[in-house]
Structures are given as C-alpha cells and as structure tokens.
C-alpha cells in the first residue's frame, strides 16, 4: 500500500530513531555507567517523542494511548505490514 511520501519519510524517521533507541538500550543494559551512550540515548528519546507527537497529530495514532475522535482512530489502515516502504518495491 502506497502512502503519502511526506508521511512515509516521517514514519521512517521515527522508525530509525526508535531503532537507535533499542540499540542504545541494549548497550546500556551491560554498560550502565557509560555516560556518553546515556546522553545519546536520552537525546534520541526526546527527538523520537517529539516527532511521534507531530506524526500522530498530523496523520494517525502509533499506539492506542491516544485521545481519539469518533470513530475509533486506532483501527485505520495502513497497518505496518501493509506499507510499501521502498520505491520500486513493496
């Protein structure tokens, strides 16, 4: 399913930020005193939160933790497995 290019770029940016968060989280689990990694983790978290807020306001909810208009907005497509993420592919 094709989605609006601007929306796709924003979603992929959120995915990239959150992946970085996951990677830093894992690293910090075994290096809890690494202040540099901690600072990067916190920075990514702030950036991700901000961008998600913007995305949810502009497009659609990313979790069910939203204040929804009627009808319930969570059920709207596309679901993550339906999106065409790359040009020339699906």
């Amino acid at each position, binding site marked *: 399913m094709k989605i609006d290019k601007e929306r796709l770029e924003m979603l992929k940016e959120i*995915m990239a930020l959150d992946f970085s968060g996951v990677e830093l989280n894992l690293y910090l689990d075994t290096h809890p005193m690494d202040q540099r990694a901690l600072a990067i983790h916190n920075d990514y978290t702030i950036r991700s939160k901000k961008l998600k807020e913007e995305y949810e306001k502009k497009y659609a909810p990313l979790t069910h933790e939203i204040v929804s208009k009627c009808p319930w907005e969570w059920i709207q497509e596309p679901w993550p497995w339906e999106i065409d993420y790359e040009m020339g592919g699906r």
Partner: protein
Amino acid sequence: MWIYEKKLQFPAWVEGCDIRIAKGLFAQYGGPDSELSAGIRYLSQRYTMPLNEVKAVLTDIGTEEMAHWEIIATLIHKIIDRADPEELKKAGLDAHYIQHGRDVYPHDAAGVPWTAAYIQAIEDPITNLTEDMGAEQKARTTYEHLINLTDDRGVIETLSFLREREVVHFQRFGESLRMVQEWMNKKKF
C-alpha cells in the same frame, strides 16, 4: 506488559518476484532457530536470572525478537499475498496453501510445525546464556543461507539488517555471561 506500536523495527520490503524464498523464510518464522524460538526462550529464562543487567538483556532482546518475528511475517506476507495458487505450487508452497492459505503459520522451511522442544530454560544462568549465544549464531547462519538463495534486493536488505542484530545480541549475551561468571566467583570467595 507490552504495548503494540503501529510500526516495524525496519522498513521491510520486497521486489516480490522470488516466491520460492518465501518458503525459505519460514525457517525464521517457525523453525528451530527462528525469531519465535528466540523470543520465547529469552522471555522464559528471565525470571530466575540473578543480575539486573541480565534480566534487562533477556527482556529487551526477547522483546526485540518479537519485532523481528513480525518483520519475517511481513516479508512472507508481501511475497505470497499476490501470488496465485499455481505460482505458490511452483514455489513449493502447495502444502502450505492447502493447509494455511496465504496466512503465515509457525512452521519451518520444510513445513514442520514449531515446537517448544526447540528451546531450553533450565535455571542455571551459565547454561541458559551459553544456549542463547549458540542460538544467535545459528540464526545468523540461517540468515546467510537465506541471503545466498535469493536475488530479491528487498529481502536481502531486510535479512542483512536482521543478521546484524544476531551479531549484536551475541555480543550482549557474551557480556551477560561474563557478568554472571564474575558474580558467581565473587559469591564463592
């Protein structure tokens, strides 16, 4: 507790012409060294793990494996969703189509259903973590075999990401094992 986020960990994509590789991808959906095995294994092992660092590693990697399981399903879904029964048959997926249609189902590349007998949780943290390190390497090798068998650029790119995650997880489990060994030595002497 988990909460679903409406996004994938990686923008999984396919060119879609290599239907045969969908059959192979089931290795990582419901095979012995699949993302499913990994997730269930780590999440089952965390309750008796002695160190906070390692409880976190098992929780976080176990959770990430569920996200990878979803990525594998997405690849399979994208490939077989538009294939007709004749194409599925040519790709060796006739048995799958008969029993499951175009749904994904946790079986391996040969159709053998997933079983908890693939995994272990045996309390001893050294034993558990050593199994986990082996599991990560087996998954890495499976990804390399899959990459060797396809020319779909999307599948290769997505599997390369997952392969790298296995390497990182192996690293974190190695550190966890070392921490547990140091903790056990401290306890004794």
